């Protein structure tokens, strides 16, 4: 039964991801850069959920692995080749090594002490990237490609042009198909589909981990670690493995970010990014399979679309109303959009946490239950 459900979920998920340029067209989010971000932060959140959702260990330090992944990838682009494969490989490996190191230290404690340790270590990594290791990271300015980088595996391109990141010739920034459907200008882009395949793979791995004995052990740790220890099980190797796996997911996400847009900045390692992924997972539904991806999409949508709504756009929306009313509405609404997008997000976050403790997935289930009236099935689904 579970196997069947997982298979259906995976198939639906795959179709959804592959059709995203079409699905998101009416929302104004269907341009390559944002779709790539949806997929990449989806991977980041899926990885984070393996640690946080299963073991309950709340890490504030995952931004460090995202940053390490980005820096590794950009260095591979500079030194080796613009093919993203070696870059992604190094990102995952480097992030894994970092995660092993940070995990080994911080997993000596649990609960709030663990969270604080990861936060401290991540902040140290940020400071290292920002002001100490500047020859390696270029500090605040960020690491960029240059015309005179060696790129020893690549043939010299046309004079004066930076080569593009590619996967065996498929250029990440290239829109390979640009049809108009229902009046929407759709952009199918290689970069998005590379990220999408990675997202589907990550989702599949996450399902496998959730259903494995290893996943069961992680859940046991979350439920009652003390009891587990009394029964003679040493839980540390399991938590460390979960930590490293989720760190590697973050590294992959960081590498992908750099592959889509070859720039790595220190702010990618800042604690706010680490906090954002926590928000994504909680908002979407921690411990659920699909929740983290929904949360990632939700937050990135707000950050990129809501922050672009300025007063002129608002005036356009309300222009059908009488002047005094439209002016009034613009005054009321404008603090919550544009640069005030964070305010709206915060309010929504509060509403979700208070009324839907299980996140967006919880909300969707409640609605489904209302529609189908199938209480029993829904209750069962919640227990999975």
């Amino acid at each position, binding site marked *: 039964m579970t196997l069947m459900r997982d298979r259906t979920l995976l198939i639906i998920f795959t179709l959804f991801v592959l059709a995203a340029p079409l699905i998101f067209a009416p929302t*104004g989010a269907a*341009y*390559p*850069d*944002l779709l790539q*971000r949806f997929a990449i932060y989806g991977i980041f959140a899926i990885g984070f959920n393996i640690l946080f959702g299963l073991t309950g260990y709340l890490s504030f330090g995952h931004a460090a692995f995202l940053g390490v992944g980005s820096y590794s990838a950009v260095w591979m682009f500079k030194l080796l080749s613009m093919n993203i494969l070696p870059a992604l490989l190094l990102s995952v490996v480097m992030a894994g090594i970092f995660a092993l190191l940070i995990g080994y230290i911080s997993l000596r404690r649990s609960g709030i002490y663990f969270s604080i340790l990861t936060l401290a270590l991540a902040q140290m990594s940020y400071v290292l990237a*920002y*002001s100490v290791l500047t020859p390696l990271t270029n*500090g*605040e*300015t*960020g690491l*960029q*490609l*240059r*015309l*005179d980088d060696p790129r020893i595996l690549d043939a010299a391109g*046309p*004079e*004066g*042009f*930076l080569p*593009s990141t*590619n996967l065996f*010739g*498929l*250029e990440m*920034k*290239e*829109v*390979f*198909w*640009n*049809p*108009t*459907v229902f009046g929407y200008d759709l*952009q199918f882009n290689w970069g998005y589909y590379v990220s999408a395949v990675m997202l589907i793979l990550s989702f599949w791995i996450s399902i496998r981990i959730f259903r494995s004995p290893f996943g069961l052990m992680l859940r046991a740790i979350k439920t009652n670690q003390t009891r587990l220890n009394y029964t003679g099980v040493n839980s540390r190797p399991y938590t460390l493995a979960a930590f490293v796996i989720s760190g590697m997911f973050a590294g992959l996400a960081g590498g992908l970010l750099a592959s889509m*847009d070859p*720039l790595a*900045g220190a*702010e*990618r390692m800042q604690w706010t990014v680490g906090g954002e992924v926590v928000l994504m997972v909680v908002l979407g539904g921690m411990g659920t399979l699909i929740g983290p991806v929904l949360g990632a999409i939700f937050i990135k949508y707000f*950050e*990129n679309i809501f*922050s*672009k709504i*300025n007063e002129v756009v608002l005036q356009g929306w309300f222009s059908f109303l009488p002047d005094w009313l439209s002016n009034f509405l613009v005054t009321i609404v404008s603090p919550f959009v*544009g*640069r005030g997008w964070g305010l709206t997000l915060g309010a929504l976050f509060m509403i979700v946490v208070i009324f839907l403790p299980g996140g967006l997935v919880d909300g969707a289930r409640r609605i489904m239950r209302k529609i189908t009236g199938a209480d029993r099935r829904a209750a069962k689904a919640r227990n999975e």
Partner: protein
Amino acid sequence: MSKLILNRRGLLKTGAAVGAGMAMPTILTAASDGGYTNAPTGSTVTLGFNVPQSGPYADEGADELRAYLLAVKHLNGEGDGGMMNTFSSKELKGNGILGRKVEYVTGDTQTKSDAARASAQSMIQKDGAVMITGGSSSGVAIAVQGLCQEAGIIFMAGLTHSNDTTGKDKKANGFRHFFNGYMSAAALAPVLADRYGTDRKAYHLTADYTWGWTQQASMAAATEAKGWETVANVLTPLTTTDFSSYIAPVINSGADVLVLNHYGGNMINSLTSAVQFGLKDKMVNNKNFEIIVPLYSRLMAKGAGENVKGIFGSTNWHWSLQDEGSKAFVQSFGQEYGFPPSQAAHTVYCQTLLYADACERAGTHNPCGVGEALEGFKFSGLGNGDVEYRAEDHQCFKDVLVVKGKENPTSEFDLLEVVEVTPRAQVEYDPENEFFAGGSLGTCNPGA
């Protein structure tokens, strides 16, 4: 229903090899795309205004946005036309650009490279912007300039003062009207040596990113050439808000000059902190302790209040200038918003006009055509006297103003007085100067 049109980027390179079946028909309709990224097809043309609306440079960003909106108004023939009337090139007629009405989109850079690039990307991919401008931080400007180069979009840099923007990180699609750290130092050093003597010990506090680094290096080199000694250079993160822990060590360092390589909110906080510690009233080495802020703006002077009195710095432009261009700009900006514009507002207004004018002269929005029209372009009437866009590095060369915080301000805007207008010849440099070497413009990229 699915009409195949040319994909925008990289078609000629590898696209054909891969998606052969899908991509082949698209080549046939290539002409409709104009041959460059986001070629405008309708009756409007979209510009992207990418400015910080949060973070330490938010004040500057807000003022930039005001100036952009004013420029759009003037280009579309609304308002009094501002500096379009005094501009030496008479191509702009108030009917938009190339007959198309100017529209715009705005975005928040958050003073972060990542966010700025995401915002610029969405302007290019989603809104079809044909030019991106803005950036109140050199780190951001350099990041976005790199993005525009790769996407095939013109980038008209706003407030960016780092040498690197038109130095080692210069790009063929990027143009800067604002001056830079080297020019500030070249203009300031003689004035400082004149007022404070040639035997001084300087302590630098520097914002820890490309702008701070290059301005500090320029200032140190220029003042050392006048006989000063650089005691120390301490880097402060851009996000610092409390500078007291950085100011305390200055007192015991034996330095008699403090150089604050800070801008915006950073400078307001560090200067306030320095004054609170009593640095301005101290005597060190039998000399009056002095503070210098190499890059000054009215917004900062306003934020720092009383503390700016008597402090030297340099600026790209100041609203009290009495030439026709400046007067026209201050007049129409003042009418619109009720206060005089800052140097940030001035530079982005100029950039918008310069871009529009270059399009008119080139007869296209194609970045290569626009770039050619801007390279080596000589103009006047935009408030800085005679100016030239140098072809070698896409940097504008013009006079630099050395300013001082006014002792007796007559109004809340009258905070700076112009001490000297340093002629352009004195701040000019070779493109391969040690502070600028190591970069290459590359080739202009029209995208598609």
